[in-house]
């Protein structure tokens, strides 16, 4: 097994999965919050833009989003996401994969935050308005801080799903865990069960602490009412 890990560079594949997860988590938290704000805003067009975004990305398979990132953004639109150097193509595919993961999971982050907003009693917003806070101030000081604390569980679920969903970017050849798994099995079909065990264990190790942490944080951070 150690020989397998070494020959197929399994640890760098795991590191790639972790990198993809971290960058995509950061990105989708920012984009998802932005879209949630759009959906809560008083402007009809912005509400519509936000809800359309969520409908589209929630109903599109991630595989499509990943392939489209390469095919449309890089190939057709010709947008550059990496410098033209010796690792241009690897960098491009890595960053496009993150972009696809961010675009897809932002829709779920948005929904998680909205469910967090739903946990806030009406009186909070009304009190904020009555002391003269504007919509922006209201969001920044009253709504969003409480929404995040109420949305810890669904946000944690999105993070766990995101970790597992990084496997899909094998479709554009990013060398993370599922890519390593395919290569291992294609060259060494005799160790199929070992490889599966190894990969399953990797994901259990990656997601189990996240689940426990989420449970702990949601209790710790819950707004006492």
């Amino acid at each position: 097994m150690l020989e397998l890990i070494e020959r197929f560079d399994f640890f760098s594949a795991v590191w790639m999965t972790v990198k993809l997860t971290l960058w995509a988590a950061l990105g989708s938290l920012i984009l998802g919050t932005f879209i949630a704000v759009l959906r809560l805003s008083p402007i009809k067009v912005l509400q519509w833009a936000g809800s359309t975004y969520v409908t589209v990305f929630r109903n599109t398979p991630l595989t499509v989003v990943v392939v489209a990132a390469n095919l449309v953004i890089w190939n057709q639109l010709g947008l550059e996401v990496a410098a033209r150097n010796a690792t241009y193509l690897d960098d491009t595919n890595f960053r496009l994969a993150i972009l696809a993961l961010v675009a897809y999971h932002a829709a779920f982050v948005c929904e998680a935050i909205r469910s967090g907003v739903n946990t806030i009693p009406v009186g909070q917003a009304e009190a904020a308005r009555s002391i003269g806070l504007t919509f922006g101030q209201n969001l920044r000081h009253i709504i969003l801080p409480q929404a995040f604390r109420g949305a810890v569980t669904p946000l944690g679920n999105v993070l766990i799903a995101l970790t597992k969903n990084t496997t899909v970017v094998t479709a554009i050849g990013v060398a993370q865990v599922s890519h390593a798994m395919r290569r291992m099995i294609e060259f060494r079909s005799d160790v199929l069960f070992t490889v599966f065990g190894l990969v399953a264990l990797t994901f259990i190790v990656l997601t189990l602490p996240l689940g426990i942490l989420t449970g702990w944080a949601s209790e710790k951070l819950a707004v006492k009412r």
Partner: protein
Amino acid sequence: MSAQAILFDAPGPKTRQRHLIWTALGSLFVFGVAAGVLWILWDKGQITPDKWAPIFTFAAWKQYFVPGIQATLVAALVAIVASFALGLILAMGRMSDLRVLRIICTVVIEFFRAVPVLIMMLFVFFMLVYTFRMRGGTAPFLGVVVGLICYNGAVIAEVVRNGVASLPKGQREAGLSIGLSSSEVRRMILVPQALTAMMPTLVSQVVVILKDTALGYIILYPELLNSVRQMGSRFGNMTVAFTAGAVAFIFLNWCISKVAEWLERRLQRRGHTAGRIAEAEPGDVD
């Protein structure tokens, strides 16, 4: 706090003006991006009859869309039925009075929830091909279906368990007091009501299953995405073909989501359950 209007006062004349400006800016941005994308695609020769006409021909539908959608739906349907069955069994097991059974079911559920669907699919597919030497198109099909069943069965089991937990305690106590055993109470009183209460969530899970059939693209199950890939090769319009595939998926899933929302409303009006009706839009992902 779902009522939007609570976040802001009814706008006065000045605010209305400001909103108008924001509306204009917002529209400008949205349409600007859309126009920019269309302009570049036009420039690259993607918006031409050559690229688009083939997907509206009878041949394209007969050879690519219809078989592709059919394969997607068949895999999804089999997976849905089987994962509901597995979900119920696992849920019953996890709530059982037998300690051993409870532990086994808990471990199984947590394992299947932790392993990514794609990894499960790859494993089943390669196992069928290499270990059981399975031939033809059965291995990709079973790979997709079994992968989906394992994950979604575990998720559904948890949904059912949460549904049971959300029922008022009196339901169980009443059942016990009329002389039912605790497993009879679960089977005849708690689980049926939990299913009704969680119905919108369960229907939303159908969207997840349908979407995940697209992972079959990677193990070459001839589902919609694979058939549009072949179509793109034949007509030389890969971008258009994938766009059409995406639209088809969005449409199918949107229909199912609408059913879930309709169910939620209907059940809230007249659901035969003591539990709270779940929301049709769970924070659940992938």
